[in-house]
């Protein structure tokens, strides 16, 4: 009898929160928006413009990136300030495919070389561009390249027990080095201009509304998949190990878990989510350039997660959507003010909202409905020790 109770309640206070209703809402909302774009006339009050769709598509990609950061920061205490690198690498792999799809429709009409190579007088395609004209190959690269980079970096870093702030700075250096490298024209990725002027994907015109809608829906679907998968991982015993690593890595080691292996694989998982987000981002915004590697972008992602509430999957998504929506709105009204706001957001969230909006929701709920369980009463304390351990 008691064992039955244990098994039912074993999942109480689950680390992922309730994710299924959220995924449902997300999917319904995206499908609704798509229908309103496709099937209502342009002047109608219900019409959702293509502009809005591309904007929402971009937000969803960002949300996915935020989710990737949350998975390792919120759950495993690894603060990566370089996740933009994986995002951008995924984007570049997709960009290379799209570039090759242009074929002889480039301005110089060269069937093999992208315009920027003709421009710089290159004679043949560099080896790393070979095969990128095949969609399946490019998609494998989207996952493989960032995945391997994450594996190598993670393997080296976690094995030698680089943790906390050191690791954050190293990830920042990683993305900075990649940015410098991709800015070089000799690298063969188009230098500062990056890759742009895409025509079509799998034969579908990138500029048609239908293609946009499909990309938008795919983004929402993949975000949902990422949410559900992450939820599943975090609720499995592996999720518990990950939390254990965050809170007391040495204890986890002394009960027999090879924690660096867990960290490496989680890091790779997270990098792959970021890369997929990047790959979806590129066809929707139409350009990828080394600016995506810039360290400030990666740090901004962290603040989305912090605003939404780290350690909750939904929080990361909500944070990314809210902050980016606010950014779109405020930069339109007061361009100079946005950086002040962003700066203040960083300070205020860390000082007063250590668990983000999701935490605030919990705090408010407690306030109004009385202490409902031990979990929320101890939020503050656990977050403190969590930090202490990751330092």
């Amino acid at each position, binding site marked *: 009898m008691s064992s039955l109770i244990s098994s039912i309640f074993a999942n109480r206070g689950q680390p992922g929160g309730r994710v299924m209703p959220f995924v449902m809402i997300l999917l319904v909302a995206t499908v609704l928006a798509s229908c309103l774009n496709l099937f209502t006339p342009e002047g109608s009050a219900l019409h959702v413009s293509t502009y809005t769709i591309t904007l929402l598509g971009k937000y969803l990609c960002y949300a996915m990136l935020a989710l990737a950061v949350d998975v390792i920061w919120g759950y495993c205490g690894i603060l990566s300030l370089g996740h933009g690198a994986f995002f951008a690498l995924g984007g570049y792999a997709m960009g290379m495919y799209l570039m090759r799809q242009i074929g002889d429709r480039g301005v110089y009409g060269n069937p093999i070389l992208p315009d920027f190579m003709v421009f710089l007088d290159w004679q043949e395609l560099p080896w790393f561009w070979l095969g990128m004209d095949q969609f399946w190959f490019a998609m494998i690269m989207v996952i493989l390249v960032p995945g391997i980079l994450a594996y190598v970096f993670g393997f080296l870093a976690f094995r030698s027990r680089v943790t906390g702030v050191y690791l954050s700075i190293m990830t920042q250096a990683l993305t900075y080095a990649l940015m410098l490298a991709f800015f070089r024209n000799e690298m063969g990725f188009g230098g500062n201009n990056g890759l742009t002027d895409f025509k079509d994907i799998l034969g579908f015109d990138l500029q048609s509304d239908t293609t946009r809608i499909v990309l938008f829906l795919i983004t929402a679907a993949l975000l949902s998949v990422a949410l559900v998968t992450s939820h599943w991982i975090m609720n499995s015993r592996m999720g*518990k190990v990950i939390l254990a690593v965050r809170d007391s890595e040495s*204890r986890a080691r002394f009960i*027999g878990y090879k924690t660096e292996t867990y960290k490496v694989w989680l890091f790779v998982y997270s990098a792959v989510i970021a890369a997929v987000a990047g790959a979806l981002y590129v066809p929707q915004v139409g350009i990828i350039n080394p600016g995506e590697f810039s360290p400030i972008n990666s740090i901004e992602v962290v603040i989305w997660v912090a605003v939404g509430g780290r350690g909750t999957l939904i929080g990361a998504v909500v944070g990314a959507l809210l902050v980016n929506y606010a950014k779109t709105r405020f930069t339109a009204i007061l361009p100079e003010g946005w950086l002040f706001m962003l700066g203040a957001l960083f300070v205020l969230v860390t000082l007063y909202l250590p668990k983000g909006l999701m935490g605030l929701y919990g705090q408010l709920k407690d306030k109004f409905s009385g202490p409902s369980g031990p979990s929320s009463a101890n939020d503050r304390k656990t977050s403190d020790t969590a930090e202490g351990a990751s330092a």
Partner: protein
Amino acid sequence: MNMIEERVSKAREQASEFFRPDQVWPFLVPDQPQQVDVSKQVLLYVEGLNLSFDGFKALNDLNLYINDGELRCLIGANGAGKTTLMDVITGKTQPDSGTVYFGSNINLLDRSEDEIAQLGIGRKFQKPTVFEAQTVFDNLELSLKSNKGVIPTLLARLSPTEIQRIDEVLNIIGLQEQRFMLAGALSHGQKQWLEIGMLLMADPRLLLVDEPVAGMTPQETERTAELLQSLAGERTVIVVEHDMEFVRSIARTVTVLHQGSVLAEGTMDQIQANKDVIEVYLGEDA
């Protein structure tokens, strides 16, 4: 000329050795769980251990043998090297020189913390460390003796026997009521118990227990003593403790460490009669 021939033949020899059909290459040999060889009745061999930090000798030619099934108490002043010794045994710190064997066949110095833990050596820290953001139940589930690779852990489901085992341990450590409480909300003494419970979950061969009764009430201390005594025999237990009353109540054999090496070993009475010990350790109390 000769030299070259010699070298060539040597190389050929090496090559044929490398490609021997009846052997797999060493790096391809799967990791086989090794059985601890305790045919000599000794579970832990610590020999000639030296370790210094910036000139300070934390361990100084330390030798220690623990018999299988024994309950051993380690005592010594601060800086005597007790915790450092535990660090070395559990793989946290590498000594400058010396050997540590688990049974007569497993060299512990070759292994990392998690491998040592999987061999069946459990450790309780001085300051109780449990996973505070997770429930008591989860804490115990994590400590289950199971395959701790990434994929098996990801796919792991609790079997009825495992749940039973957790219930059992919950009973032993007296935390059935608190099973769904977050570990961070437990009292200090309860955390100590939980940590011991986590060690028990792993079904260890050797338990290293660092100051188990610090901060406990007399009743709790008594229960802890009972618990540790009940463990000995089936398992081997090493206890580091300052509380002399407690040591007296549980110890059969006591080892005194001083400045990184063993000063004396014997029953509590023998120790208390030992001149050296009185001078350097108990002398301070008196």
